[in-house]
């Protein structure tokens, strides 16, 4: 599954595309972790604006990245989830560890 990485001001933004399920999450994880390990950013932004489907594998993906970012002293932000994706995030209480926000006004 495609992940586009953008680097700006010491932040890594991973733009996720398509469907996030157990099958696709593994390659997304690998893509994101490669950039995080190489760049060691202060903040990892996960952009869900182009994600068309997500199940609880997406929560696992965020939790895993939160753990990685914690180890290097950074944090994780969730950007632009659709209503149905936000419904899943709300169920998980993930907003306690990763801020959910829109970054479209930038």
């Amino acid at each position, binding site marked *: 599954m495609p992940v586009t990485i953008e680097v700006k001001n010491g932040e890594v933004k991973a733009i996720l595309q398509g*469907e996030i*399920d*157990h*099958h696709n*999450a593994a390659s997304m*994880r690998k893509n994101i972790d490669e950039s995080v390990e190489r760049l060691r950013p202060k903040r990892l932004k996960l952009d869900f604006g182009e994600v068309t*489907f*997500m*199940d*609880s*594998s997406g*929560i*696992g*993906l965020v*939790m*895993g990245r939160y753990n990685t970012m914690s180890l290097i002293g950074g944090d994780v932000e969730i950007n632009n989830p659709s*209503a*149905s994706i936000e419904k*899943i995030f709300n*169920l*998980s209480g993930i907003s306690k560890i990763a801020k959910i926000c829109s970054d479209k006004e930038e």
Partner: protein
Amino acid sequence: MRTPINEMRLTIESRSINEAFSRVAVSAFAAQLDPTVEEISDIKTAVSEAVTNCIVHAYENTSGRIYITAKIFEGGQIVVKIRDRGCGIPDIKQAMTPLYTSKGGERSGLGFSVMESFMDKVTVYSNLGRGTTVTLLKQINGRYSDD
């Protein structure tokens, strides 16, 4: 036993690539109830969770078949059964506890929580060494409901 007005059966191999196919197939079958976008998304997500459980847990180090049936009843109710012949669940209550996972790492432990919050009723029947059946029920009010 109520008689369904329509029914479909689907058998898939426990390969993760089939997760997308199975959720789309069930939601396409449900489309005849004229569901809202949200209702379709709820069904897709719940089916994806149940099928993923079969692949990740039931057939963990093996492979096998996953049997899916969907039935539509008068009044707009859909009942989806996802059955495997895998290892079975030793403790169903524990398995359904939010955030509990036997896997750790990247599994969130929220599969059953997602099914329960997106469907009206979730029933789990499991037999150790024989397999598990998850039954998902949802009332579809659809796009043409009055409210």
